[in-house]
């Protein structure tokens, strides 16, 4: 059965062009860029080329502002640790309740190390309040870390404004932009963002490569200590093929940005409107300010994992914020922070489209979903 992949916020397919770009660096030019011999050292040029591609995609002014890492999580950890080191003496961190675990788990760990962490609340639409951020800011805040777009709901955050507020108190501003890159252009030129994390596998590069943007002039402390790679900012032999792939994927992402904002958005809207025809359904998250391909929709009194199992049987891949899918017992921390009632939160499904989805995919999902929800409601004790 052909797979209809509607889980692009989880990971994406490697674009064939990206794969072709990286292939020679696995098969033929496998040298170590740090080697003295030309077979290895020649490879270092393609890393610099990839750095340009990534810088261009995200709107960084200088290629030296990009450091390659192994993943988004490493980039987030590096960014926040580095920010804390460069604001020694300051003992507060501000983030949000709806961050990805890459930031949230670190934040909780920092609390154990003696930092005071403030988790900004979100409203029912999943939006933070910049006023709350202003109120929380003071000279003891070392770093503010706010995601550019939420992975579960797609809700966009006003990171440029948040960055300015952080700077008023000389704190550093970091954004986890893993979900936003290639879908929503950020403004790095304004200088409000000091640090930015991105990941390859969310933009059609393979898993195992990411990047960190560090605005020029900001002090940086490496996280991975080792060799002199990445100008001493990230030890460890370069993942050459992965870096080449990330570069190629970044270039494509920039090219497809319009497509995401128009065609993909239209498909998402069609999908969402169709699903909302099902009785007792609702969209989770600010529908005005969202990533173009993401919809998080809840079906009241139906359990999300059960929906996913049925979708899976139809060859449709999606995600859920229900408790049962994660192995935890409570619905996702994002939906709970938004105050989504339990009878909706347990029945949430996240569908995330990308440029390779088709209208046919959308129609197929719309064909099968009403029956799935109907079947599950039929066996439910809450049926009316």
């Amino acid at each position, binding site marked *: 059965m052909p797979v209809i992949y509607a889980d692009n916020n989880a990971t994406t397919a490697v674009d064939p062009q990206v794969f072709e770009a990286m292939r020679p660096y696995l098969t033929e030019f496998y040298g170590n860029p740090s080697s003295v011999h030309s077979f290895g050292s020649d490879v270092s040029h393609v890393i610099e080329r990839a750095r340009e591609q990534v810088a261009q995609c995200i709107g960084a002014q200088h290629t030296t502002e990009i450091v390659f890492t192994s993943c988004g999580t490493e980039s987030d950890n590096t960014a926040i640790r580095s920010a804390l080191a460069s604001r020694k003496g300051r003992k507060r961190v501000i983030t949000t309740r709806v961050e990805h675990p890459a930031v949230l788990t670190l934040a909780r760990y920092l609390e154990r190390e003696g930092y005071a962490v403030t988790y900004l609340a979100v409203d029912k639409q999943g939006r933070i309040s910049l006023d709350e951020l202003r109120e929380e800011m003071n000279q003891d805040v070392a770093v503010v870390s706010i995601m550019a777009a939420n992975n579960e709901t797609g809700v966009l955050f006003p990171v440029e404004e948040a960055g300015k507020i952080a700077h008023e108190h000389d704190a550093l501003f970091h954004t986890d932009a893993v979900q936003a890159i290639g879908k929503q252009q950020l403004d790095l030129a304004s200088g409000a963002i000091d640090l930015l994390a991105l990941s390859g596998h969310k933009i059609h590069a393979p898993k195992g490569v990411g990047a960190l943007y560090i605005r020029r002039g900001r002090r940086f402390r490496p996280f991975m200590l080792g060799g002199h790679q990445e100008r001493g900012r990230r030890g460890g032999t370069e993942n050459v093929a992965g870096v080449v792939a990330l570069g190629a994927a970044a270039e494509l992402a920039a090219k497809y940005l319009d497509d995401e904002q128009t065609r993909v958005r239209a498909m998402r809207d069609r999908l969402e409107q169709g699903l909302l025809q099902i009785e007792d359904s609702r969209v989770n998250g600010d529908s005005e300010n969202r990533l173009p391909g993401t919809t998080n929709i809840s079906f009241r009194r139906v359990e999300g994992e059960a929906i996913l199992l049925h979708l899976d049987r139809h060859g449709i891949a999606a995600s859920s914020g*229900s408790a*049962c899918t994660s192995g935890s017992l409570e619905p996702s921390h994002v939906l709970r922070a938004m105050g989504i009632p339990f*009878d909706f939160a347990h029945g949430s499904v996240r569908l995330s489209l990308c440029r390779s989805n088709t209208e046919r995919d959308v129609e197929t999902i719309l064909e099968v979903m009403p029956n799935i929800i109907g079947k599950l409601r039929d066996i439910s*004790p809450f049926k009316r």
Partner: protein
Amino acid sequence: MGWNYTEEVKEHFFNPKNVGRVENPNGIGEVGSVACGDALTLTFSVEEGTDIIKDVKFQTFGCGSAIASSSILTEMIKGKTLDEALKITNKDIADALGGLPPEKMHCSVMGREALEAAVANYRGEKIDTEEDEDEGRIVCYCFGVTEGKIRKLIAEDGLKTLEDVTNYTKAGGGCTSCQDDIQAVLDEIWGEQETQVKSPVKKPAMTNLQRIPLIQELLDNEVRPMLQKDGGDLELVDIDGTRVIIRMVGHCSGCKAAGLTSGWIQDKLQEIIDPDITLEVVEEVL
């Protein structure tokens, strides 16, 4: 799916048996709630006199394993007398499904609870008032789990760790603020046993609880380093009285000298800890 559900779970999830409500049921069991993420209503009609469950149906809101557990439960109890049906434990339900992921064991517990509730309803027992006394205080407010339920499952299913208790009862799986309380109950129960077993008979025979750490220590400090030198290892599967059950892994699994090795390990255990110890080696589970 992240869960590797068995074929039995999938079959009962995709093609659930006995869905709905029995007409004019004389026993109804309702457990769970929307807030908890799963709920089950079991209805049956029992033949007066014989106590045989003639018809039974279920309605479930919940994940794949919740629906599958409910479905298979109806098949397991149909045609049985109430007393026979009550002998079915949550483990029996999970076993009939070919096993459930540990994190999903609470689904089988929900099935068992619905059955108890339906039987009590049929018999006119007011479980909720009478047992409330025994059930005692609520430990986990997120899922409304009482100390009584936690104690019951610790005893019935031999739950040893906080994680076990959460997997079976959900308690502690929400805000986590009650985890210390649950641990205290565990400590009390397993600590209690130790004193009960220890005090009355003062003879050199070791209790399980004394034996276990010694066995573990010996295996970890003396045996496993030897095996690891050869690229192998062992896992302690269980200690049941004087039966020590291990599994060979890595190069030790399927090794021609495995028999020799296990003989050597048994000798060491007998010599150093207890002459009654016997060693059993189970096959590596892939």
